């Protein structure tokens, strides 16, 4: 997906899942690789367990910081329902990477709404390529369930041109010092996941 001017990655999930850190890592990898890059997210109310998205765009010259509907090359999603919520941002030949985690929104937790039970099938019918991983489980195996965001970056890295070293340097520069080994392992688990 490098034979066009701008590559668009939309990251979606729930406030508190480490989405903003993941976006920063992606953006800094693109920067180090010599691309123009823009990243956009909205924080504020969103951090209180609400729906969160972050847009990362890179290429020769990037204008808009936000991705248009139908133009995302990759939708990297940290939660099942949020994947479906933002699916219309994906291009018709785009790839979905989804963490097979369910987090009930308050409406579902309180019993006033139903969590859709057929999300993987819904996604399958709406995208060219679906990559479903249990990132939370992989992160646990690496040593800390909270490293799920880094695990998912490992999965994402398979679809981008940048070397693992570039990714690992960017990760090490952004996570707390004592968590670096676990996070780098989490990245490898994601990159090598089936």
């Amino acid at each position, binding site marked *: 997906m490098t034979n066009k001017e701008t590559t668009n990655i939309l990251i979606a999930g*729930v406030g508190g899942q480490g989405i903003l850190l993941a976006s920063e890592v992606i*953006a800094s990898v693109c920067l180090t690789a010599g691309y123009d*890059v823009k990243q956009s997210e*909205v924080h504020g109310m969103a951090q209180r367990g609400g729906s969160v998205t972050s847009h990362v765009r890179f290429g020769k010259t990037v204008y808009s910081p*936000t991705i*248009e509907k*139908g133009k995302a090359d990759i939708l990297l999603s940290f939660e099942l329902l949020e994947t*479906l919520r933002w699916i*219309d941002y994906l291009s018709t030949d785009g790839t979905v990477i989804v963490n097979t985690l369910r987090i009930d929104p308050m409406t579902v937790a309180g019993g006033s709404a139903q969590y859709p039970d057929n999300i993987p099938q819904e996604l399958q019918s709406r995208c060219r390529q679906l990559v479903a991983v249990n990132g939370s489980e992989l992160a646990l195996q690496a040593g800390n369930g909270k490293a799920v965001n880094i695990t998912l970056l490992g999965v994402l890295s398979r679809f981008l041109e940048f070397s693992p070293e570039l990714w690992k340097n960017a990760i090490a520069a952004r996570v707390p010092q004592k968590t670096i080994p676990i996070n780098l392992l989490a990245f490898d688990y994601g990159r090598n996941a089936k």
Partner: protein
Amino acid sequence: MKQLYSGDEAVARGAWEAGVEIAAAYPGTPSTEILENIAKYKDIYAEWSVNEKVAFEVAFGGAVAGKRALAAMKHVGVNVAADALMTAAYTGVNAGFVLVSADDPGMHSSQNEQDNRYLAKFAQIPMLEPADSQEAKDFVRLALEISEQYDTPVMLRMTTRVCHGKGLVETGERISILPRDYVKDPQKYVMIPANARKRHVIVEQRNKKLAEFSEQFSGNYVIPGDTSIGIIAGGISFQYAREAMPNAAIFKLGMTNPLPIKKIIDFAEQVKVLVVVEELEPFIEEQLRAAGIIVKGKDILPRLGEYSPELLREKLTGQVTPAAPQEALTLPGRPPVMCAGCPHRAVFQVLKKMNVVVSGDIGCYTLSTLPPLNTMDTVVCMGSSIGMAQGMVRALEGKKNKRVVSVLGDSTFIHSGIPSLVNAVYNRANITIIILDNRITAMTGHQQNPGTGVTLQGQQAHEFDFVAMAQAAGVGSVQIVDPIDVEETKAAITRALEQEGPSVVIARRPCVLVDRKQYEGPMQIDPEKCRVCKICLRIGCPAISIENETIRIDASVCFGCSLCRQVCPHESISLAGME
């Protein structure tokens, strides 16, 4: 070397590089990160002020006394500062002074989407609008130079996508600027009518000079291209227009007050159709029409919310990008919620069951308006809960059981609740004021405030005394409760409601995100005892859910505030690991 900066970080960097020495703000999304980042530069004095008006005055005073200064606030914050702004425009400055207004089209985190470009025009001060992080940094310096050259405050107007969007920024070093001399000059700075009349003449003369400056300002320029549609845009709208129509001729505006009208007339003559692309109000469009220029604008583009490249492409060219279908889906929403373990929740649990009108305010606790708590009757602006309650209680007089309760946070109370509390006592308003004192300004990301007793740059400060404040105002009944104790909270609010005249309840417990270890640990449900009455679901805690008619508490989310244990009528909830 290039860095990836958000617009807010870039403003902070720009302020540092341009020799700013004094900066002040009150937190407000999307502006908060400006001061948070400025505070990291130890050669700038940076403070959280108690509100935007004070922040403006601190920075403005610094500029008048000779040092470059910056004040930052969200769009509605400029309303609070407007009193000072309108007259600061008359006095002018000494050293450079920049007011950053961070607008929020689309209302991601705001109560309205007012267009503050009108405030720059209203105050008759110049305004710059950066379109990305690089410009955000560069424009701070330009704004300071314009401020000094034309002796005026300058507005740097940003929007959420510029503030929070990240892009590459070429950084530089801090320039060294000697403070200007401060010379007492009452005719310039003491705005008694006799002096103000003379200053107003100068403001008008300045406007003419600024209009000429705008005509030759390098930030207002034409990008040549296809002239079948010519676009005029500044700020984030410029990026959307470039993305949607990369080949169109564009007039890029960096300075939007005053507008470079002559230059725009020249551009208009070169293009077939001229379209003004601006989010929110027809600020530029109306001025161009008044100058006799034929333009399209709000007749084809919306006045509400944010723009996007796809919106512009569709409205200007009719093209629609195919997308993965989403429309057939009805998905449960995921609104933000009050956190598990939030100390505010119990107060609303109590209020929900009382027959009272709740005059609410701005902060995390505003989320209690959502189901299942549904507590707030009104929320309008910072500090309005106490004043509005006083009018409401007068209007509801004579109606049965219509007591009015104001609910506001510690920071909001200090921001603008204090004068209304004094008013309530002075005018004998029969209201109860609950101050949700979680020791921090939480909603905007945990900024210090006078109640915290620590400043932005980490210095110990006097810890504001809420009780003494209420007593000094003359409130007879002032109680402090631990809000997590439901019975105690209920009793305190009930006692307060029985008082004649204003009463104050201070519900004090630290924000759970600041002190995560304040409780004993997660709760658990005994499935033997649970009768699935769902009363615990009605407190709206994100740690509690129901699936297949079984209630469960997610131990990874629960902090252990015990509110669910207190409301459970069947004693089925206890501390995890205990029998």
